[in-house]
Every structure is written in C-alpha cells, then in structure tokens.
C-alpha cells in the first residue's frame, strides 16, 4: 500500500524522518517496497500565470504565452497545448528545470520564437497515466487560482509528500488502511493516535428502506452487506486535497462520489461501491453465485463470461456488479447521477480471490477483500462516506442503513503464560513489560495470576487468534534486535551424513577428480526426451497436469537427455570440449500414486577431456576413455560383485556397435557408449559418449572394504603372449580364459597391444598380453612359470581358436 506520510501526520504526532519511519515499519510491521516523493528528481518547476496567449504566426497549433512566474517581468514561453489560455495558473518548467524522465529544459527558439521554459501536463512532471485525472488528458494542468506565482508547484500538488510503499503479507490485511498503519505506528513509537471519524448527519425524513431493499440468502458470500442512499448529489471534480490523497496513494481521481469511496477504502480498508440509483433496473439487492455462462459487462467495458464459482451483486436477480471485484458498466456513477446507492460489504475472501484471479481483475478492492475486512468499521466507513459525499457533492442522506447481513465484530480472548512467552522467545520479560506492549498495541487484557494474562485481541486485528500470534506481537514490538542470540543447547545429538549420503557425495567427488564437471539440468523436459536413454525402459513418463511451457511437461526418466541439451548449448557457443556429469533424480512411474524416485549418475563427454596443448594434441574422447572413468569410479566405490560390460544393440538412441550394458553379477545397473549419430544429429551435437548408472543399484550391491595384504618380497616373472584370433572374439573372453587356467601364481593379466590391419589376414586380429607371476612365499622357478604358462597357451588354442604368435 502506498502510505502517505502527510496523511499519517494528520492522526499522529510524528517527529521522525519518513525514511526512518519506513525502516521502523519494515523492522516491526511489514516489508517496504520503496520510499519516494513524486517530486524526486525534479527541479525548478514553479507556478506561473498566463498573462497573455497569442497564436504563433508560423504554426497552426502553437501559442506564444507571456507567463508571470513571480519575477519582475513575465517570461515568454511557446506552448502547444490546446487548452492553454490567459488567466490560468499553470505548471512552468523554467530554464534549467528537470522534468520527468530526467529531461532537462533549456531556453531556445521554437519556430523562430524565443521560449524560456515549458508549460507542463501532470505526466510531464512524472505523474503516470494511471493516476493523472482524465480531465486534463488533452493538455496542460491548471493549478488553483490562489496558487502563488513563482512558488514551487510541489506543495500545491502534494508532491512534497513522502510515500512509503509497503508490501503487505497475506496475514496483515489490517495494514492495507491508514487506520491500521496509524494503530501500528502508534504502538511502536508509543504515540497516542488522534484518529478522526466523521459522524453521519441524516437530515432527510425519507427512509432508506423505502428506496432500497436487500435480502442476503447466502451470508457465506456476503457476511456483511449494508446500503445507504444519498439523494440530490451533483457530480463534479473533488477538491484538490482529496485528489492529492488519491493520486499519492496511486489512485486516479474521477469525481467527488467515486473519490470519496476510494478515500474511505484507503482510510479504513473498507471497499465501497457506488451505484447510480436511477440506472438500476430495480432496487432489491442480493448476492449470489453466478450462473455458468452468465454474461456481464464490467465498467471497463469488457464482457465477462461468468462461472458458477464467481459471485455477483444483483438487483431483481440481475447482476449489477462482480462482488468485491468490479462494478457493472450500466450502473456506475457518471456525470448525470443524482442519486447514489452506496454499498459497504464484506465478501468472502476466497471467492473474491478466485474471481479476481480467474478474470485477472485485481483491484484495490479485491486485494482488501482477499485479505479480510475489519467487521468493526464497515458501518463507520459507510457513514463517513455518506457524510463526505453530502459535504462534497451536496444532497441529502436518507434515514437509516439497510442491512442484509452483518458479521459481528468479535474480540478474541487469548490466554497467555509469561513463562511460555519467555520460553518461546528466549527472553526474560517481566509481566510489566508484556503488559506495556499490549498497552502500546491498545489491546485490552487482564491479569489472571502472576504468570497468566488474558489478552483481548480486537476485531481490527483479525490475524490474531492464538497465543503464538501474541508471541509475535510481543517479539516485534519488543524488537527482534533485542532478542538474545543463542544456539540450541541439548545433548545426545550426533549429526552426520548417512552412508547413502556419503556414497553420493563420494561419487560426485570421484567424477570431478577424473575431469567431469557437475551439471544441474532441468528435471522437467519433453515427453520424448524423458523417455530416451532409460536404463530399463518404461513406457510413459509422469506428466504435469497444466505445464507452463512445451519444453517442460514431463519428469525425466533419464539424466543423459538433459546433459545432451547442455552439450548442445555449449557446442552452439563454440565450446568444443564438454565433459559433464550429473547426479540427480529420475522419476519412474510404476503404478503408485507417485513415481519411484531413483538417484542416478550420468556423464556426457564430447571433444577432448583435456584441451590441446603445445605438447599434447588431438586426443578426442572415445569409448575407452569414458569406460576408463566408469571402471575407475566403480572400483573406487568398492563394488564387490563381478562388473561386466556387455555389448548391446538394443538401445535405440545409442550406437549399436559402441554400446555396452553395465552389469554387476549379471544385474543391469547402467550402460555406456556413443550416442547414435542420428540422435546426436537431432540434438545438434557432434560425436558424444555417455553413460548412465542407477545409483540405487550401486548403493544396494555389496561392497568391499579396503584391506591390507603384504606385498610379496619375492621377484615376479613375466611372460608375453600374442594371440591371433577371429575379429569377433572379445577381450573379456580371453582374459577370463587366461585367469581360468592361470594357476595360483598368476597375479595380473595386462593387455598391451591390439592390432588388426594389413599385416594380418582379413577377419583376424592380434591381442598381446603380459602375464605376471609371483609367489608370496618364495622365489618362482622358470620351470614353475613355464608349466603354468603352457597350460594357458594350450587352453587358449582350444578355447578361442587362438594362434600363438
């Protein structure tokens, strides 16, 4: 809410800088968006009087004006406004002035005629179209005739006021009124507010009840509904003081009746609606839910198609307003209105909120209804509004208020224990201190015992209902700065990461150590991408009911697709070497209400793992480089089971000849390989290698602990063997065979060469291994090794049809 400092000063003896007040409000009540004056950034803008106004000889619309700006002689200003005329007091930006948008005014010549400044419209001195009165839309603004020539215009237009723009949380609806602000400020500055209410004087014998009737069938929609009638009004502009109050609060002045309703809305937080009595088709008011498909034209001219959840005010069952949101076009107060029906109500906050949201019709009124209305001031506001209309627009107020429903203003008794207060806040407040705080808040209370207090929270603070709400009142008025600062004292607490959390963290660190940078991609993606690259494919991902963008409609079932988006993003920006991993959730619908959330670990590498340097060049990533990382990672994680890489052609997004399923003891835990060139093309990425692992499986599988074995003191003996085999014989088969027949002393099998090419027969390849033998208990003899080695060679000849070279 835009709160006027000068308005507050009417009711409070404030002796603080407005900025300090704003700071105090932020520390004690509600957040502050901004503190400003309409005159900020403006200078040398004064009152002028147009003495003479002649047409410019070389223009069909410009005028040459002689303007008295309080100096010895009038100054000449060329002005293009159609409404400029002699005898008017105007806003003059002098030579050297600064007006809206930081524009500087300089003297100069306009079509050959000297001009020493500029006559301004309100918009030109910073008023937004939203608040500038419509009357002056087509020209410059006229100041009151008693304005002093040469004076700064700011005080005449209220632009010297400071506006404190508060950001009111949903619970503090009471702070959406000057009344609420005055009460809160009085409490934290220990001030006595002198809030002025204007009493109504009914001078007419005519009964309101003879003019309007109301029957509120559903008091849930309108817990309070009241009407008054003012007859014989004359619609005109409001006095300037009232217009200033409104535009400083961000509301555009319209006419004396509408302006009064808005003024009361600001003062009490009570929205009012004024109807042109004579334009109403009948005068029996009601409220009801709209009929599905019912049409209604709001006063902004828009045709609204209503739903059953909407709520309307009716006469004779015909909608005349969207309750709490916006009035209707045909029944609004206009220049010809003479009789006004004035409505003060409380509409259901949820219904108004839904309606305003659905129709995108958020207004000063709907905002207040949504956060609740003070039931104690509905009638006060209605009476004061009627009286003000009478004072400003003439007419008579008919006798009595017509009430359709009325929610009682209930003050709530809440029991408070001093011990509990101090227990919750960590303070050592005395009963006197607590009572003092409630005195300041003007809450009644009575002390029940040394420790017990019954506090009466007034209806104007409808946010307060339980003791915890009072703790907050005590804390904020006492001052959060005055709270001590401690740490919880307690025993028996052993914090720490769980083994699962440690495993996941170690996984991340391990991959980073091997050159992959952590990415965090979006979990929400397209259906197509959500379904790709699944370890064990499921059909459909979980989909959002009402997505925001077509790129984010389903939860991912793999992590690779997100990483490929990241690769594409980098490649498109000429970053050629991308090595990323991501650890996160995939969401697997398995028939339950919610999908199974699995932790996965995936990586994607394109280009080179290490950039070219002067001494190391052109080492593009390949399958084996990434496999090395995965193998090392799984080794480091202490997987106890047998890890195998099994070729697969079954993954549609993967290269059929360069992809392996990763298994632990024959359980599928992930896969690795090259992205299928077709898929890569769709992602607009170059050759890219990826892997994805199901961390849940890795977490569950047995682990080996680090353990110590003595290093053999005896020398090892090596034998090299080169095998010529068919090209489709796998290394894994050979290594397995070697180990099977290797004997007790075979310590290590190391592949040191793979060759296929022109020196070999077609369809053959050569693999060369070093076998290392060692005995922990003695020195091996040549004979022992030869015998073991021979067994291997014989077996290989037989098993894989190897030719020993």
């Amino acid at each position, binding site marked *: 809410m835009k709160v006027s400092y000068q308005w507050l000063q009417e009711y409070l003896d404030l002796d603080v800088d407005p900025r300090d007040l704003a700071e105090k409000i932020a520390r004690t009540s*509600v957040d502050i968006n901004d503190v400003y004056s309409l005159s900020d950034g403006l200078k040398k803008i004064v009152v002028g009087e147009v003495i003479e106004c002649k047409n410019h000889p070389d223009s069909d619309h410009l005028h040459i004006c002689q303007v008295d700006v309080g100096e010895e002689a009038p100054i000449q200003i060329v002005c293009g406004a159609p409404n400029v005329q002699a005898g008017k007091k105007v806003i003059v930006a002098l030579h050297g002035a600064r007006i809206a948008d930081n524009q500087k005014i300089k003297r100069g010549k306009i079509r050959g005629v000297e001009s020493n400044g500029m006559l301004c419209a309100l918009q030109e001195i910073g008023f937004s179209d939203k608040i500038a009165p419509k009357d002056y839309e087509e020209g410059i603004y006229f100041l009151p005739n008693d304005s002093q020539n040469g004076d700064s215009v700011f005080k005449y237009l209220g632009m010297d006021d400071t506006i404190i723009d508060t950001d009111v949380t949903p619970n503090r609806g009471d702070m959406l009124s000057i009344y609420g602000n005055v009460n809160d400020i009085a409490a934290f500055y220990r001030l006595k507010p002198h809030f002025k209410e204007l009493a109504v004087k009914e001078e007419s014998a005519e009964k309101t009840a003879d003019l309007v009737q109301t029957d509120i069938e559903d008091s849930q929609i309108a817990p309070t509904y009241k009407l008054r009638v003012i007859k014989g009004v004359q619609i005109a502009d409001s006095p300037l003081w009232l217009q200033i109050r409104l535009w400083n609060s961000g509301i555009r002045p319209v006419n004396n009746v509408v302006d009064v309703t808005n003024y009361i809305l600001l003062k009490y937080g009570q929205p009012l609606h004024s109807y042109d009595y004579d334009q109403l088709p009948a005068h029996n008011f009601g409220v009801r839910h709209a009929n599905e498909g019912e049409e209604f034209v709001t006063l902004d001219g828009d045709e609204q198609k209503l739903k059953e959840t909407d709520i309307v005010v009716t006469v004779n069952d015909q909608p005349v307003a969207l309750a709490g949101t916006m009035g209707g076009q045909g029944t609004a107060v206009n220049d010809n209105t003479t009789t006004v029906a004035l409505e003060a109500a409380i509409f259901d906050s949820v219904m108004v909120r839904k309606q305003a949201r659905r129709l995108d019709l958020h207004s000063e009124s709907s905002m207040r209804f949504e956060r609740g209305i003070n039931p104690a001031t509905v009638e006060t506001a209605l009476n004061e509004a009627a009286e003000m209309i009478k004072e400003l627009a003439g007419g008579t107020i008919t006798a009595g208020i017509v009430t359709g429903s009325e929610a009682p203003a209930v003050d709530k008794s809440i029991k408070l224990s001093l011990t509990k207060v101090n227990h919750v806040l960590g303070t050592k407040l005395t009963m006197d201190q607590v009572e003092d705080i409630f005195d300041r808040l003007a809450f009644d209370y009575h002390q029940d015992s040394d420790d017990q207090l019954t506090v009466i929270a007034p209806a104007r603070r409808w946010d307060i209902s339980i003791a915890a709400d009072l703790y907050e009142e005590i804390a904020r008025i006492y001052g959060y700065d005055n709270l001590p600062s401690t740490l919880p004292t307690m025993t028996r607490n052993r*914090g720490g990461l769980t083994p699962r959390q440690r495993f996941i963290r170690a996984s991340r660190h391990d991959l980073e150590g091997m050159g992959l940078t952590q990415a*965090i991609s979006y979990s929400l993606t397209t259906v197509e991408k959500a379904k790709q690259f699944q370890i064990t494919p499921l059909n459909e991902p979980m989909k959002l009911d009402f997505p925001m963008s077509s790129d984010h409609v389903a939860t991912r079932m793999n992590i690779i697709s997100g990483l490929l988006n990241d690769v594409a993003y980098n490649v498109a920006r000429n970053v050629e070497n991308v090595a990323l991993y991501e650890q996160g959730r995939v969401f697997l619908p398995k028939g339950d209400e919610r999908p199974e959330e699995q932790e996965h670990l995936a990586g994607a590498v394109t280009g080179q793992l290490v950039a070219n340097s002067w001494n190391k060049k052109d080492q593009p990533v390949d399958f084996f480089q990434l496999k090395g990382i995965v193998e090392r990672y799984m080794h480091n994680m202490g997987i106890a089971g047998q890890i195998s890489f099994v070729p697969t052609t079954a993954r549609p997004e993967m290269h059929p000849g360069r992809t392996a399923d990763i298994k632990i003891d024959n359980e599928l835990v992930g896969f690795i390989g090259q992205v299928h060139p077709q898929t890569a093309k769709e992602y607009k990425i170059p050759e890219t290698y990826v892997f994805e692992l199901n961390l849940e499986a890795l977490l569950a599988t047995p682990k080996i602990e680090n353990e110590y074995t003595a290093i053999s003191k005896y020398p090892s003996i090596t034998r090299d063997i080169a095998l010529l085999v068919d090209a489709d014989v796998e290394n894994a088969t050979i290594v397995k065979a070697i180990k099977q027949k290797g004997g007790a002393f075979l310590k290590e099998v190391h592949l040191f060469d793979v060759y296929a090419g022109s020196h070999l027969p077609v369809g053959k390849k050569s693999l060369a291994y070093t076998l290392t033998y060692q005995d922990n208990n003695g020195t091996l003899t040549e004979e022992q090794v030869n015998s073991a080695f021979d067994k291997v060679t014989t077996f290989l000849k037989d098993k894989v049809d190897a030719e020993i070279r």
Partner: protein
Amino acid sequence: MGLREKLADLRDQGLQDIRQSEDLKRVNEIRVKMLGKKGPITSVLRGMRELSAEERPKVGQFANKVRDELTAAIETKRAELEQAAMNAKLAAQTIDVTLPGTPVAQGEPHVIQQIIDQVVDLFVSMGYEVAVGDEVEQEVYNFEKLNLPKDHPARDMQDTFYVTSSVLMRTQTSPMQARMLEKHDFSQGPLKMISPGKVYRRDTDDATHSHQFHQIEGMVVGKNITMADLKGTLETVAQSLFGDKLKVRLRPSYFPFTEPSVEADITCFNCLGKGCAICKHTGWIEVLGAGMVHPNVLKMSGVDPEEYGGFAFGLGPDRFAMLKYGVDDIRNFYLNDVRFLNQFDQKG
C-alpha cells in the same frame, strides 16, 4: 743425470701432459703411461739399487711424492673434465620452463552444490541430520500439513505444478518438516534436521525466475527451543557463508507454517552496511525466511505443541550464489555452460 733429476723431469713432463689433456680418454692414457707398472717412474725406481743406503730412502720418498702429485693432478683433471662434460650435457637438456604445464583433467562441483555442501557441512558439525525428501510430493505434505489449507491466499504466492489433484512437484522443501516430525522419536531427544533439494514453481523462466531451483530447509524441535536460538543459528549460517563481520537482523514476515515468522537480513557483504547497488542502498540483504514452528503444524504431525516447540528456516542456495558471486541471471545455473561452471573452481 741423477735419479732425482729424472724423476723431476718425469713429473714436470707428466704435469704438463695432464694440464694439456682435453678429454677423459687422454687423462686415462697418461695415468696408465705414467703410473703403470711399465711406466717410467717404475723403471726409474728400479735404478735405486745402485744408490747408497742413505740416498735410497730420500729418492724413494721423492719418488712417492712425484707419484702422489701426478695421481692428484690426474684426479683433479678428471673431476674437472667430468664436471665440464656434465655441464655440457645439462646445457643441452635445457628447456623453456616458462612453457605451460601439461593440462590435467579436473572437473568442478556445480556452484549451487558448493553452497549446499557448505551449508550441510556446517549443520552436520552442529549435530543436525540430513533428510532428503521426494521431489514429487503429496499435496497434503506440501500444503495442508504445513497449515496451508486449500484456498489459503499464501498458495497464490507459490504457483504449483500439479500432476493430479493430490500430487504435485513440491514447491518447497518444507514438506520434510511434516514428514520428519511424524517420523521422529522424541523420546530419543530433539529433532535437528536439514533438508536440501530441488523445488519447482509454475513460473516463466527469466533472469530472476526459474521453474526449478533449490532450497535448504532446517528445523529444530524439542522441549527448550527458543527464538533466540533461531537468531543465533541464523547468525552462524550467515557468518559462515558470507563472513564473520556480518550481522543478522530479523524482520516480521509471514509464512503459514511458522508463528512468529521472520525474514532474516544480513549486512550487505559488498559494502558492509554502507549502502551500495547490491543491497539497494539499504545496507542489508534479505537471505532467508524463518520462524517458530506453528502449533498447527506440530499438532497435525502428532506432536504436542504444549510440550514441544522449535524453529524452522528455509534458504535459497540459488539466491545465495547469485548474491555471493553477483550472478545476474538465474538461468545460468541450469544451462550448464562449462565456461560458467568452471569459474567456481577455487577450493582453498
């Protein structure tokens, strides 16, 4: 010419040869020639038989002296030549040490992860447990059990991705408050937990909004937990993340699941409170929301609010990272430009 003179001549000749030799091979030849069994000194010494008894030891002594001198000269020369050879070899091996070192593959943790880990480590050190929740949540845990009934205005503050009428993408990590309160055995002591994770809001992505971001929820519930404890805890977090000199201030705020509710500001780490563009000239930066757990939340999770109470807080690692490093666009965190990610590689 006497033996003495002969020996002196041999010595002079030998020393001269040694001096003039230019490589180890030549030095070795001299050594063999001069000092070997068939060398001139040996043959001179053979003539000693003809000397008198008192001459013999004197010449013998002199001969030994000559031999020692020559041996020493040879050794000196040899060392000299070896040193020169080594120097030449090393000179030939000289490299340009200003050439860059060979690059090493090294990845980095994501900047958001770094902040999360830092916060998690801090709380773990203070005895908190880490509880990680599901990202697809039941509506009751995301809202109802946090004192946000249907049609509560605060739900408008959090536009939600619904999956069905009862399942949604969690909008906050707070559901873990309710889940942990239900699970915790208070007879074993107070609940102290922290819960980091991803959350989702139905928002259009732009520089300051992201439909996916992170939160870290914290909660302590026990028999003697005060708002002063909350203040002290938040101060510890702020100082550990942003620096020791920073102060924390609390301002009233509103969250349905805490009462009283506060926002916590810290002294602007950029200007230390003097006022600058980052803190919009207030000297303070809003970093997190917190409060005392609402009695309704405790009740709904089966915890007696008369006996137990505590505080909860939530902070945004994305916002922390943006503040700490001046990142001006939240989308940077999720686009994973490696040039962006690799900026946060300082570990010292």
